């Protein structure tokens, strides 16, 4: 019988938190920002997490859509990892959000949601982002909250894998080709360049990302392209 996921350890959820956060990392579902106002939620500024699915959060040029669905983070008593499958269905716990040493007990509240202008998300106010594993655990709990259906996490991963790969490759592209990470215009320009590269030739590379038998070839080609462009800088 299928159950909701029970993570084996907290670290498996986070790709980066606190000082590890890199502003060049593309925004992804589950990213947590501070000082965010969610219209319709009477809490003023606070912590909020991106809820929009990775498939639908970007539009033309690989840029974020004008509005993203976000959910408020609330203080929430720590939930032991082995208890995750058996309750607390309304939330996605985010234990030790900023650091393993700073015992901050919060959770994404699936019922405190609203749309936020993506222009209002300040990269320097991002406090954590999740691993691919963490995002799929979040998706599984969100799906269950909305539908009471438990979809196996591995199946969720199979659907989202092209988005994870694309985010990882865009991150590499930006790390190697953006000279000033604080220059938002340069980051946007390189994001568009990356998107155009994936879409070139009828979008062959982008469609190959959807095929687990061809992803390694896409990684190779993108990395070779990054090398070639970096050599010209």
């Amino acid at each position: 019988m299928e159950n909701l996921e029970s993570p084996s350890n907290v670290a498996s959820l986070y790709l980066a938190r606190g000082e590890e956060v890199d502003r060049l990392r593309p925004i992804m579902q589950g990213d947590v920002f501070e000082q965010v106002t969610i219209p319709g939620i009477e809490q003023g500024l606070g912590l909020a997490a991106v809820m929009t699915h990775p498939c639908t959060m970007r539009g033309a040029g690989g840029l974020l859509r004008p509005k993203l669905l976000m959910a408020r983070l609330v203080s929430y008593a720590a939930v032991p990892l082995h208890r995750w499958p058996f309750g607390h269905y309304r939330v996605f716990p985010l234990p030790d959000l900023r650091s393993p040493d700073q015992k901050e007990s919060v959770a994404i509240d699936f019922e405190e949601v609203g749309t936020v202008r993506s222009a209002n998300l300040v990269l320097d106010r991002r406090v954590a982002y999740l691993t691919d594993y963490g995002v799929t655990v979040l998706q599984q709990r969100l799906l269950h909250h909305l539908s009471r259906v438990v979809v196996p996490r591995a199946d969720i991963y199979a659907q989202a894998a092209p988005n994870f790969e694309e985010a990882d490759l865009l991150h590499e592209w930006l790390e190697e080709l953006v000279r000033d990470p604080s220059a938002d215009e340069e980051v946007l320009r390189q994001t568009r360049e990356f998107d155009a590269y994936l879409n070139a030739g009828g979008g062959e590379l982008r469609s190959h990302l959807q095929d687990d038998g061809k992803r390694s070839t896409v990684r190779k080609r993108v990395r070779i392209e990054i090398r070639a462009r970096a050599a010209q800088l």
Partner: protein
Amino acid sequence: MISRTSAEPEAVDTTSTSSVTEVVVPIPQTMTSLVSQVKGLRDRVQATNQDVAELHRRVNAHDLERRTHFKVREDTRQLLDRLAIHYGMSWNQIAQLVGVSPQAVRKWRKGEVATGENRLGVARVAALLDILSDLRIANPAQWLEVPLVPGYTVTSLDIVAARKVDLLLEWADLRIETPERLLDLFDRNWREKYESKYETFVAGDGNLSLRRR
């Protein structure tokens, strides 16, 4: 050489008791002896085969360790570059196989020095990919990440991550007949553990979606 004449029954003994006639075909001594000899020979071949298979596994493991100790002399960043650019592995896959977080691999790429144990781990992954290439697997990274059996999510990466490299090398060297047999040897409960109840399909907007199989 088996003599056809000697293998044939020499006579048919017909014994009659009241209304029932029982036919007894005597088995010649030469045939009985031959069966016994061939059975013994087969047992010896089977035992030898098992010994040789075990020896092969030990030699494979030794080869991997020998290559690893050559590789570990190279700079970790160079090894990571080779895995990423020559083989096309993802950083997450490398992290999974070394047994560290993706963030740790990112730090090594940026120049942070890995511990001796982790340098060996990266070298071992690089050595494994080289061995798979030598076994005529054209694209080892792809070969590792594709599900082994349709309808199940388990991949060769899972087998390596579970530290069962010897099994994977047997599979790569075509010593195991079917992926199902490989998975039986890997984990008896693989059908329950890795069954995929949903399949992906390209939806109208060009993105993947899920539907029940």
